[in-house]
């Protein structure tokens, strides 16, 4: 076996076509990984600047405030989801979902759907990241490396002779293909490993990524192997393989997406906003009980401090902000659970397409999948709850304003 492998390595070094595909794989991997690392660095830098500027802006806004209500109204708080140490390999949803917000104590539903995303063309076309390379391009390169192992020998009329002299076909084709699959995997993975060492990705994640990539290539190898047993010309084989690639990489995911989205309709997001805005705006004209009753149902602890004396009081203002959120909560929950359901079904559907499976798995490892983005949104919701929990004990009992106490304002910890 070793002898066979050494022989095949020697053959490979003389096959200029194969060497070209392998070199291309390495080159593309270096490009994908280095752009990824640069992008992650850029996003970290942006977050660093934002944290500083946000603190300065808040300090400035709080200066000269005279009551708790005003302080809460003018102080914005940055929330953000930093890229993980594997995000360089799969930017995933970070290009289409927001990963930073500035929120304040007003109704959260009016703020959390703000989308601070980049140039729309980026989200439309997508990045050339390692996940895309591994999921979509690597299988094509593998096909180009393997499709004519047999057929080329057939065209050269050596096939039958080779098979006859090799003893068993396994000794001939297996080492030949194995050398190519190993070379392709290694050349794709080396830049990934290098970058992981530089950015300090945990070995556990790198190991998983390696297993996923190698596993996917093995599946594609199996597909190529089965197809190329057909006794046909190299060009017919390549055509059929490209057709299979198209089916698995493009058609199946597109059909699954369409089916999933039809099965799991999303409530119209605009309705959430509309309902929230109307609740908040109508509250001004409604009797104050219409706000305070539903509010106190959620927060009975403030019942003793909820009597309102003047036409405008901050506690009433923040109460109807919260009621706006309370009223939209069922719709918001529906929206979120539909997104989660879509993601769950997409996870199942990805078993039908190695391409989708690889891309999703990488996004999961990198924390850039839909579930992670939803988890970030949940973290923002929790933080907003903390903001309310901080302010209500000052607002409702009419505690005298003390700017010193604002030093303990909750901070967002990603």
């Amino acid at each position: 076996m070793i002898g066979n492998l050494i022989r095949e390595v020697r053959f490979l070094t003389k096959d200029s076509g194969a060497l070209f595909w392998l070199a291309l794989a390495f080159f593309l991997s270096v490009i994908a990984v280095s752009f990824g690392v640069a992008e992650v660095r850029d996003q970290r830098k942006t977050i660093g600047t934002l944290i500083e500027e946000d603190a300065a802006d808040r300090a400035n806004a709080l200066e000269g405030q005279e009551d708790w209500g005003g302080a809460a109204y003018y102080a914005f708080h940055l929330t953000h989801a930093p890229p993980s140490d594997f995000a360089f390999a799969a930017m995933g949803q970070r290009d289409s979902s927001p990963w930073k917000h500035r929120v304040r104590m007003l109704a959260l539903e009016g703020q959390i759907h703000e989308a601070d995303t980049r140039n729309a063309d980026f989200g439309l076309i997508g990045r050339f990241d390692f996940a895309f390379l591994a999921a979509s391009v690597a299988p094509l390169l593998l096909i180009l490396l393997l499709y004519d192992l047999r057929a080329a020998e057939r065209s050269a009329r050596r096939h039958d002779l080779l098979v006859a002299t090799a003893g068993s076909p396994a000794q001939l084709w297996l080492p030949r293909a194995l050398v190519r699959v190993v070379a392709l995997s290694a050349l794709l993975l080396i830049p990934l490993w290098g970058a992981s060492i530089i950015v300090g990705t945990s070995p556990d994640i790198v190991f998983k990524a390696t297993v996923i990539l190698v596993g996917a290539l093995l599946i594609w190898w199996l597909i190529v192997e089965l197809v190329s047993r057909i006794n046909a010309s190299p060009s017919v084989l390549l055509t059929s393989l490209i057709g299979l690639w198209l089916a698995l990489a493009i058609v199946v995911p597109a059909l699954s997406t369409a089916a999933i989205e039809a099965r799991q309709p999303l409530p119209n997001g605009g309705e959430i906003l509309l309902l929230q805005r109307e609740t908040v705006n109508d509250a001004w004209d409604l009797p104050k009980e219409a706000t305070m009753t539903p509010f106190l149902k959620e927060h009975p602890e403030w019942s003793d401090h909820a009597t309102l004396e003047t036409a405008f009081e901050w506690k009433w203002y923040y109460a109807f902000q919260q009621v706006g959120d309370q009223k939209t909560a069922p719709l918001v929950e529906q929206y979120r659970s539909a997104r989660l359901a879509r993601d769950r079904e997409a996870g199942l559907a990805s078993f039908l397409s190695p391409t989708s499976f690889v891309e999703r798995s990488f996004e999961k490892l990198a924390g850039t999948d839909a579930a992670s983005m939803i988890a970030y949104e949940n973290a923002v919701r929790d933080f907003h709850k903390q903001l309310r929990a901080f302010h209500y004990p000052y607002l409702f009992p009419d505690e005298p304003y003390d700017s010193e106490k604002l030093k303990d304002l909750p901070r967002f910890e990603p």
Partner: protein
Amino acid sequence: MSMIIRIAKEEWRLWLRSKVIVVAALIVVALLAVTSVLTINRVADEQSQRLAQQVEAEKTFFAQPDRHPHRMVHFGHYAFRPPPPLAAFEPGVDAVTGQSIFLEGHRQNTAMFADTKAAADLGGFAALTPASLYQLLLPLLLIVLGHALFLRERESGTLAVILAQGQSGVTLAMGKAAALLAVILIFMIPLILVATYSVSLGESGLGAFSIVGGYFMYLCVWGAIVLAASIILKQRAVSLGVLIFVWLFAALIVPRFAINASSAAIDAPGKIESDLVMLAEQRKLGDGHNAADPAFQRLQAEVLEQYDVETIEELPINWRGVVASYSEAELTKLLNSYAENRMSLEASQSRMFDLFGLASPTIAIGSLSRTFAGTDLATHHRFLRESEKLRFDFVQSLNEVHANELSYADDMNRNADAEASRRASVNSEAWQVLDEFRFAPDAAGERIGRATLSLAVLVAWLLASISIVFLAARKVRL
């Protein structure tokens, strides 16, 4: 001429006999048909839905009861962007940007609820549109059909016979080109149907015709590349391999690489980032809610002098309304300068991306088709600008109502009791100041003008690839 047609006919006879080719073509036809029908229905739904939402939003605004005009400034309004007729073929950035935007005083919001944010995530190509099939799949079909177009004659030895009969390589190449051209023309039919349908929805003939023309050119570029490879290369498998590589490079690698490169080369700060910079400046302008802010002292002196009175209480107009209007105008100037800066950075990123069209015709046709269809980034930017104008107009009209129809004394006293706050409201007829907003695609001529760069790149590709075919065909020897 008759020779060319005979060669083309012979090619078609062979194609129709090949199971692989017939199956491949049928699959592409089926995909095109299904995708077109699905996209047309989806876009038609969205079109009517958003129009209805726009009308509904206006109705809601008009139906608001008597109240303080500034409350209406915060009540706000919505602008919706319905997809243009050609979105049925090329939905473009619509899915990424979000199509509705909330408009209110003192703020410029972003468009919200983009489809992609809530889409089922199955990787890079998950959404198929008729346009992406034309951009990605049809070139592959042309490759499968044509990679051995010329080579076949060489392999079977008929090339020698044909050349010996006195036919030139160019004639033979033209016959093959005619065969491929017929394929391209047949595959233009679905696009022509969709384009005709879009005309029935109000698209101009010029717009529909130019998108058809653009794709025809694009497919001809691929046809010429395929033909050139089959003339120059000597082995079927090599020709197919090289062409697949060209496709992989042009359709998958370069566009995404171009995105990486233009995002790395031109840094367009996000909204939060530029907002924070702006906020520092904004604080200098003062807070429009607080008429006693020192930043308004100068304004106050001017207005008092204009009306020749001593105190703001004596003014015939409501001082708070004046302040609201003044600070909204100043703030908007600032907001717009930051928004314009952000948009121009994004536009230069997109221009840089378009230049990568020189390395990939797929980029050129993609930009061309989004621009012709009116679903490009520039149209989204125009939507942002127009909705901003809508926002500013209704906010300022309300501020005018605030200044002219509500007395300062009532206004200052508005929180005293229920009766006082009733007095500090204006009749709801004033809400009619809101303009009707119907976002429409711009004129076809303008869209075509915007696509000049991509169009020039595509024409360059066409000329270059056809020249290569001619040069290669003239040199054909045995």
